[in-house]
């Protein structure tokens, strides 16, 4: 249970960072923390006490393997996050080119 709580706290730390930080790069990093917390959560609930890795090899029994599906989901979501993070970094670089700053409070051409 304590692990789930820590995972949730990690998610909140990321959310806090996204909301309060003013630097574009810090916002991207906070988003990454948030996404890692979600991934961690997925891996965490698939775990069980004494479970082993879910890879079939010669002479291994299936009984004590952990659930492989959430791990597959996490792999997929990591790939997606890679794409989104690359996109965000590219946008941040372009914003820096146009405004000469990473400070989000100074990037305000769109009102309201």
């Amino acid at each position, binding site marked *: 249970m304590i692990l789930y709580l820590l995972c949730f706290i990690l998610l909140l730390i990321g959310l806090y960072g996204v909301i309060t930080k003013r630097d574009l790069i810090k916002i991207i990093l906070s988003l990454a923390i948030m996404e890692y917390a979600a991934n961690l959560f997925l891996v965490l609930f698939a775990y069980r006490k004494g479970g082993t890795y879910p*890879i079939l090899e010669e002479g291994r029994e299936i009984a004590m393997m952990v659930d492989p599906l959430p791990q597959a989901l996490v*792999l997929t979501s990591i790939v997606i996050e890679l794409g989104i993070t*690359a996109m965000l970094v*590219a946008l941040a*670089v*372009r914003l820096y*080119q146009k405004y000469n700053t990473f400070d989000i409070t100074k990037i305000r051409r769109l009102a309201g």
Partner: protein
Amino acid sequence: MKEKHGMTLIVRTITRISVWLIFLYGFYIIFHGHLTPGGGFAGGVILALALLNYMLAYGREKTENWININLLHDMESASAILFLIVGILGIAISGSFLANWLSGGKLFALFSSGTIPILNIIIGIKVCAGLFFVVWTLSIFHIEEEAEE
């Protein structure tokens, strides 16, 4: 402007000596995707890192001489199309998209599990090219920015 021409001689020499080993490991991971952890994505990332290692050590111009950037770009889209073609062949042969239309082979052998190794190789190429172009494109931004100032 030092970055444009790469890093010092020490880094370059190490890269020169080790780049083939990184490539080999990437191919190993891709080929064994259906037997061990890893697979197309992980192996593709390793391949891309080998290319990026060279790019960081030697700079952009030398990388352009070493690998054909246009060919890599074409390979990226071609690999996606190949993936879809393998999937559509599944419709044609077995009746549903991405169905495994090759024979499964013996369990735990290298040449087994039908189309999955083929798809792994295709994904590996796609990820390698894609990830390489992400960093490549970001480094173009960098140079433009310096030129503007």
